[in-house]
């Protein structure tokens, strides 16, 4: 392969080779781990900074304005200016707050957001850890951010925080189930939980999104992922117009920035996971593999920002109904379609599973519509 393809791998090998000359073996292993960790710890915040800029830029363009364009060329230094502002802000802790919990919550919320990057394959041979349970690890670790949100909302001793925390947890628990169910087809077809082998199963343009089950599975997964990271239109936990800022009402300065950072890093992780599971990960022609991964992830991020620029916030019963009545049955039946796809021989499976998918889509849609709440009549309104 050409050098641009595996430039990061080559660099790492060179560094390790340099240290291998005069250090014992075990330190080289530790250095290798440290290099991966450092790469992730740098990559996460840098991505977050870039994402804040991108989000403001794209939302600005959607709303017929420029977005940030003062600090640096195209406003690219805006995140740094924001960071300086955050750092110099006063750090406020409410007097009645549970001090320890209040302090620990923003610290803990960043940990899962960084940990999930360790199993994402950023390119050919560029997963920091090739866990054989990588996908499950991703899902398990990302649930831990729930706990941090709980801690923040409880520790603030604020009713709005508590409401936001309750909403966040109810939403995350609900959306986790269709999310896990929608990745089951991928596991079913590849027969592995390792991210690297999932990407390898899609090499050569056989992306899962091009199959009937993969297409709808990707939609379900992506919607659930957007809900998991509390982004619009699922941003009830921090709905500004309803409950101030939700669980981070009482946080200011760098602690707030940590919450913000965790949110954006998880958003990128979800985008990267969608790209990995359904869009072939780093597979693609011409460009180096890591660039393909970034391109796909940023396409997903763009869709998230596009959602944010377009859609208003869900009502809480619509939110729950969407997860339990539409996404969950659809994700479950999608597993059945994937099994059909896997069982039947090659030309037949496309037709059969496509028809099954369409039938299921219609059935689930009408079944979920049937008992949607009646139009309310307001007795006292007139």
């Amino acid at each position: 392969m050409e050098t641009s393809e595996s430039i990061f791998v080559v660099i790492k090998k060179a560094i390790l080779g340099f240290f291998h000359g005069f250090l014992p073996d075990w330190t080289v292993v530790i250095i290798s781990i440290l290099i991966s960790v450092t790469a992730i710890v740098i990559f996460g915040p840098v991505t977050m900074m870039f994402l804040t800029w991108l989000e403001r830029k794209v939302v600005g363009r959607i709303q017929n304005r420029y977005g940030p364009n003062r600090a640096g060329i195209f406003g690219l230094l805006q995140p740094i200016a924001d960071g300086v502002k955050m750092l110099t802000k006063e750090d406020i802790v409410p007097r009645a707050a549970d001090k320890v919990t209040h302090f620990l919550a923003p610290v803990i919320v960043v940990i899962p957001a960084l940990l999930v990057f360790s199993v994402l394959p950023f390119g050919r041979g560029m997963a920091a850890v090739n866990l054989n349970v990588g996908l499950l690890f991703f899902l398990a670790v990302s649930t831990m951010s729930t706990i941090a949100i709980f801690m923040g909302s409880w520790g603030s001793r604020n009713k709005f925080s508590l409401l936001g925390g309750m909403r966040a947890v109810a939403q995350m628990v609900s959306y986790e189930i269709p999310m896990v169910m929608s990745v089951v087809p991928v596991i079913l077809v590849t027969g592995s939980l390792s991210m690297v082998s999932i990407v390898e199963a899609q090499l050569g343009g056989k992306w899962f999104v091009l199959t009937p089950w993969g297409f709808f599975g990707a939609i379900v997964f992506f919607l659930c992922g957007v809900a998991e990271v509390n982004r619009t239109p699922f941003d009830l936990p921090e709905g500004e117009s309803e409950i101030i800022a939700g669980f981070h009402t009482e946080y200011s300065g760098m602690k707030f920035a940590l919450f913000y950072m965790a949110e954006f890093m998880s958003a990128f992780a979800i985008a990267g996971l969608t790209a990995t599971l359904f869009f072939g990960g780093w597979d693609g022609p011409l460009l180096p593999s890591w660039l393909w991964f970034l391109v796909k992830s940023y396409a997903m991020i763009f869709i998230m920002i596009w959602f944010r620029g377009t859609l208003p916030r869900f009502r809480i019963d619509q939110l729950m109904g969407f997860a339990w009545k539409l996404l969950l049955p659809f994700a479950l039946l999608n597993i059945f379609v994937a099994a059909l796809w896997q069982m039947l021989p090659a030309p037949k499976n496309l037709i059969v599973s496509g028809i099954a998918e369409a039938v299921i889509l219609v059935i689930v849609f009408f079944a979920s519509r049937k008992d949607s709440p009646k139009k309310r009549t307001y007795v006292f309104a007139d």
Partner: protein
Amino acid sequence: MDVLHNLARLGFFAATLVTLAAAVMVVTLRNIFHCALALILVLLGVAATYISLKAEFFAVIQILLYVGAIMTLVIFAIMLTSRIGDKTVLQNNRQGLMSFSLLALFNAFFIGSVIKTSWHLNPAAMTANVDAGVLGAAFMNEYVFPFEIISVVLIVALVGAIILGRSDQ
């Protein structure tokens, strides 16, 4: 590579110590919310123990189910049943000393007997690779009946919890 093994073992010992300390916090702290947080630490430490037993899949399941689901439930229940400022209420009854002494006695005997026992180690099991595939195959072949029973139990628990938790009537 011996150094690495020793480091790993040191890390494991530290993890068990942290786990035990957190477990003590679970049963002694006054603030029930802090107890729940300590319990999360315990569960993560137990997951680390599973990793040291080369049961990565099970460790991840532990995190996914316990930390993600059960602890969320517990914290939800805490939030619904206690007011924000409660921490002065005495959380323990007066059986502490008696329980402690009896359990200390039990542990003395238990640890003594464990140390004296010579275990019949199975070297094949120690090196075997137990991943998700092996577990899934076992679930679907040998243990399919308990698996079905468990799923029935789970559904019953689900329905029961919904009925018990309903607010009206």
